[in-house]
């Protein structure tokens, strides 16, 4: 179905609003993020089965660790 001009205009407004909010959040979150040289905050998390855990500090003295954060949407 072909969107109407009004629908497209609403989409553009939504995107511009989203961009403004994202830029604001980026400043806040970048300031709050741990910085280079700081001790990485420790955590223990479980995998998707809920049975196998991992603790960040267990890798100290053994291996560097890459942390990749994200979601599906």
């Amino acid at each position, binding site marked *: 179905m072909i969107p109407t001009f009004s629908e497209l205009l609403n989409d553009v407004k*939504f995107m511009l609003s989203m961009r403004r909010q994202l830029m604001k959040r980026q400043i806040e979150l970048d300031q709050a993020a741990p910085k280079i040289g700081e001790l990485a905050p420790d955590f223990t998390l479980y995998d998707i089965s809920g049975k196998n855990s991992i603790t960040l500090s267990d890798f100290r003295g053994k291996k560097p660790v890459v942390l990749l954060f994200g979601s599906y*949407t």
Partner: protein
Amino acid sequence: MSFRELYEEYHERVQFLNIYIREAHPKDGWWLGRRLTKTIVKKYSSKVSMEYYDPETIEERRAVAGDCETALEYGIRTYVDGMDDYVNRTYAAWPTRSYLVGIDGRILYAGKMGPTSLKPKELKEALDENLGQ
């Protein structure tokens, strides 16, 4: 350069942890499944889903994390943040971000907030610099 390529190149020397955090754009939140936004997002990231609600229990969160792990095909085991979002908040991780933590436990690389500032190439440079290449 993708994270999957980084994993394939470095995983024997570096531990990779994929951490699933609160959904960025669920159907019941800041949803991008509208006409124009959907077209644009799909153009740049074809594997992103528009079909999920924000999980309300840890079981739901684990299930979505599993779907995400399968779809994104990083090959990296996924760990799931708790419903208190502790790790997400501590690392200012939402919606997506990357770090490199050194053997001494200190942060060697701290990426900016993604997805627009998520830079696998920067992470590779940090890996090469710190692994002595």
